[in-house]
């Protein structure tokens, strides 16, 4: 389980699959455009300022790339890139999580028995 990411294979990147790579790209864009997004959204979503300013706000928001949106980011499994069944605290798919837990690699995780 220590060699989860195989580093010595001839590949262009070491992501598990392309979806994981794209998700990573989206996260980076999110961080990059976060302040612009906040300001544009503030200008857009208010009824205090005049309409022209609000229009400018909507335009600014539209200019920001779509991949910079928070809704596009998916919390995938860090090892298998599974989009569903991800245990949030460990960022792992439930299958991977279970195998690690069985090998006693997760701190404080024990088989439930009551």
């Amino acid at each position, binding site marked *: 389980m220590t060699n989860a990411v195989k580093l010595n294979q001839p590949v262009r990147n070491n992501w598990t699959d392309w979806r994981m790579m794209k998700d990573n790209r989206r996260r980076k864009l999110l961080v990059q455009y976060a302040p612009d997004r906040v300001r544009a959204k503030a200008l857009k979503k208010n009824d205090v*300022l005049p309409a*022209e*300013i609000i229009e400018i706000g909507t335009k600014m928001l539209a200019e920001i790339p779509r991949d910079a949106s928070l809704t596009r980011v998916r919390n995938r499994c860090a090892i298998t890139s599974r989009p569903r069944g991800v245990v949030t605290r460990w960022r792992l798919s439930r299958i991977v999580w279970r195998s690690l837990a069985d090998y006693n690699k997760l701190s404080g995780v024990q088989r439930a028995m009551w």
Partner: protein
Amino acid sequence: MFPTSMATSIRNTKMLLRRAFSIKRNEILARNLCFTRTLNANEDQDKSKKVVEEKKNKAELKEAKQKEAKAKLNMLLESMSKTTQKAYPSESKLSLATPKIRAKPAKPVKQPVFNTKIEPEMLQAVEDVSNMLSKENEALKNSLIAKLEDVADESERARLEPFKPNKQKTEDLNSLLNTLKVDGKKPKNKSPAPKLAPVKIEDMYGAQPSGIFSKAHFIEESSAVSGLATWDMLYEKELELAVTHPPANGFQQMIQWTKQGKVWQFPIDNEQGLDEEAQIGFHEHVFLEPHLKPWCPRRGPVRHFMELVVVGLSKNPYLTVEQKKEHINWFRDFFEAKRSILIDTGAIPDITTKSSPSLST
């Protein structure tokens, strides 16, 4: 005369075997003597002596034969000559049809005349050499220049024409190589390197400089941008790896992280690592109105909007004070840029009516 008893026949066979294994003749004789004594205990001593004598004669005969054989071998070796003699003469005595030898019309070899530019430096060098050897010798100079021109022409021709292997030259080369191959003997003792007389250096640094390279123009290799970006990057990586020592195992990794301060300290403190933030008091986070004071109008939609922004920022625990200030400043700059629109819509009171130049009233 061979005695015809069983013992002697046995003895003969044993003798043959011993001869095959090339034991010394004296030993053979001795053993025969011993053998004869034990076996021929009943026989007379004279008879045994006779046998010994006969054995001696046999040995002598054998020696003589061996000597003859050796002599013959030597003769054969001497007679063998190194050069292989042909069994048959090369020229045959038969009158066979021979092809007519037609002299091919010699093609006029096109010698393209090149106006090869002899570099002025070369010319100068040639002139210097001629001057050094014999001053004001026009003939020598001209001959040297002519030779230079020839060389230049030949090189130009060779450069332009494609390379055609010269058959005569290849044949010569091949024959030369063959003669080299036939020589089988390898000289075991290497001829010692020619021993030169030791150079007498009187004064190493006191002599006058010869000035050979005083006028030399060394062409620097153009260190242009190499198109191998990946290679350069990998080379730099290798250099870094040579200097740094990445951890070889998990223990070393943990040690490195502990030293870097990346490892959680127990008991767990959620704000571990945020020392600078801890020093900044809450008042800087919450009371952001002073940042609005210099520029924001006291009333109006702009003020309303900025108040909302400030309230939101004050409630945000995730941003640093700098980031909050950045936000406020951005809005200030934005409203400054859209000043005309704000005035048109009536968000900001018109400046021309008022005396103060800033946005605030």
